[in-house]
């Protein structure tokens, strides 16, 4: 049997960094992209953000990875070619691609612009495209993507600091809207001050919320307040602080993906409050039912956002000067970056300078 050879599979040569196995070590990888179809947009990748999901995936922590795996779903660049039926983009446009590159385009979810909940949603990397080939992500020099799954990066946003918005940004923006936590004056808690959390504080402040950051690290307090604009800070391990804050929050967005107790978080909510999880711990959490009933509270989840909403999020970010706080790195630093990311040692997103440092 002749295995598909990534280099020969498609006509357009491509170069990137791939993990070969569960060690997660990334190394140079020659592969190929499809020819630009009628509805496709081809673009030169300029920057790609490193999302914590990339780390989970290269190490197969969710059990869904196939190798070789080219991660990266916070991809920004410049259009170099468009297919004959493409209407929204032209050569030279600044564009981005996030976590999905395909969906069925016909189910209720797709028709309602929530392609991210389509059962046939195709992930930007480690997914299987309509043509049966494996999808490779943005730690690479070129992307070819269906225009429906490409967004315009507003001129007002710097490309590098905008890249993380394509996953982290939309992951916070979408639930703030869906769960009605975008009303001015509400009191919102954000659990975890990492890649997701710090962007969440910025969006929530722009929407007019009073924001309390909830974290296990007292050391993050100053940053949270002075740098990101949070109104207050709660150390989740400090029982007295948590007790004093009970029943004060209209909503909480919980970005923590490690297993952790949610009962104290439910206690922080006012009656009719909403706890929304965007990190997904792999083990079930304990759900105390009494407080849910007595206060008519909800615990819900959210996963990225649809394409229309992703564009809306970028436009909102441009209007309110919201970008991620980033550390730009060269391609050859990526394995070190992954090790630092594992220890939470980054303020607050690594972004790979692909155009200048990733070459075959």
């Amino acid at each position, binding site marked *: 049997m002749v295995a598909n050879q990534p280099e020969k599979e498609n006509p357009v040569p491509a170069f990137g960094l791939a993990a070969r196995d569960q060690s997660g070590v990334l190394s140079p990888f020659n592969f190929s992209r499809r020819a630009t179809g009628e509805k496709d947009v081809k673009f030169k990748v300029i920057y790609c953000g490193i999302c914590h999901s990339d780390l989970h995936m290269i190490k197969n922590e969710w059990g869904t990875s196939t190798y070789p795996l080219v991660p990266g779903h916070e991809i920004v660049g410049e259009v170099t070619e468009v297919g004959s039926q493409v209407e929204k983009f032209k050569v030279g446009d600044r564009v981005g691609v996030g976590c999905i590159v395909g969906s069925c385009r016909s189910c209720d979810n797709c028709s309602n612009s929530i392609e991210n909940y389509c059962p046939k949603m195709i992930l930007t990397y480690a997914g299987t495209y309509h043509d049966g080939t494996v999808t490779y992500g943005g730690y690479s020099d070129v992307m070819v993507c269906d225009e429906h799954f490409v967004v315009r990066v507003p001129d007002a946003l710097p490309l590098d600091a905008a890249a993380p918005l394509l996953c982290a940004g939309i992951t916070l923006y979408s639930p703030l809207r869906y769960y009605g936590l975008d009303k001015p004056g509400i009191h919102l808690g954000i659990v975890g001050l990492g890649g997701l959390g710090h962007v969440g504080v910025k969006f929530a402040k722009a929407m007019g919320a009073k924001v309390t950051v909830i974290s296990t690290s007292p050391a993050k307090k100053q940053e949270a307040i002075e740098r990101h604009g949070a109104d207050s800070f709660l150390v989740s391990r400090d029982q007295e602080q948590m007790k004093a804050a009970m029943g004060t929050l209209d909503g909480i967005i919980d970005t923590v993906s490690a297993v952790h107790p949610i009962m104290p978080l439910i206690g922080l909510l006012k009656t009719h409050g909403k706890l929304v999880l965007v990190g997904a711990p792999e083990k079930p959490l304990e759900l105390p039912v009494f407080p849910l*009933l007595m*206060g008519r509270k909800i615990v819900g*989840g959210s996963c990225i956002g649809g394409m229309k909403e992703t564009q809306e999020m970028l436009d909102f970010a441009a209007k309110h000067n919201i970008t991620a706080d980033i550390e730009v790195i060269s391609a050859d630093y990526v394995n070190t970056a992954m090790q630092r990311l594992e220890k939470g040692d980054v303020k607050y997103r690594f972004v790979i300078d692909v155009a200048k440092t990733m070459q075959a």
Partner: protein
Amino acid sequence: MAKSPETEHPQKAFGWAARDSSGVLSPFNFSRRENGDEDVTIKIHFCGICHSDLHAIKNEWGFAHYPMVPGHEIVGIVMKSGKNVEKFREGDRVGVGVMVGSCMSCDYCNQDLENYCPKMIFTYNSVYHDGTANYGGYSDMIVVDQHFVVRFPDTMPFDAGAPLLCAGVTVYSPMKYYGMTEPGKHLGIVGLGGLGHVAVKIAKAFGLKVTVISHSPGKETEAVDRLGADGFLVSSDPLKIKAAFGSMDYIIDTVSSVHALTPLLALLKPNGKLITLGLPDKPLELPMFPLVLGRKLVGGSDIGGMKETQEMLDFCAKHSITADVEVISMDQVNVAMARLAKSDVRYRFVIDVANSLSK
């Protein structure tokens, strides 16, 4: 020196009370307050037995005070009404549910959500504004502030309507709040007991497609032929459950013991809502992946406000919805509790208080 339950108040009353966490009920002499300006004195005709009564008399939730007269599905006739009472007159058919008081001034009270008032007062096993213990509807009469009394529709039979005062509003309220009233949408109802069977009837009246999910295969015929459910799933049949994955817009979970949420979440479509109404004594396990990947949510709900309770009764009267009841005499109440503990009732016991409560 503390007054005894008999002498505490001026109006003599008689009922059955649990004395300790054995939960055994026995005759109990006590008293009710004088009928105040805002009050209505009600001769109790029937009182439904809610599963919460069983949890409460056995102190399963840990906050019981004895002697405890349970009962919060109370229907009867007005005997006296205070001088500020305009809504009710002597002879009116009325009902009292799970609450008899609240602060009447907070945001929740002002929005007709007395059930979420931090100072809400339960009908029994609680303390009234005057510091005295509240006794519930397994008794001959009750005095209640008019705000917490509802008019019982003329067309609704007393005995079969009584359970609506708790079971009815407990399922009606979340259906409205969580938006489960769009005709054609698919609702799953877990548990076919007192709450569940009323939920099927109300859901059908809203035009929903209804699937009952139960651990008892024997309930299928009842669910479909008699109650009008469109489908039935046995929770221990993994193949049928799997075939129904991703088919429901919402689920109302009435089960009060600890049980698995994972299969229920899988039954929901993306953006689906699982609303839990039962009160298990331990936390449940909540898997997060389905919540996050499908933007699903788990929510709670607790009875309903007074305005909503009246609205629910009127809705049920319009659609001829009542509970399926087994009427018993007061001296059968302990046997009924033992049967209720084994879910051996279709689907609510109702005590014929007026005809069977004698000293």
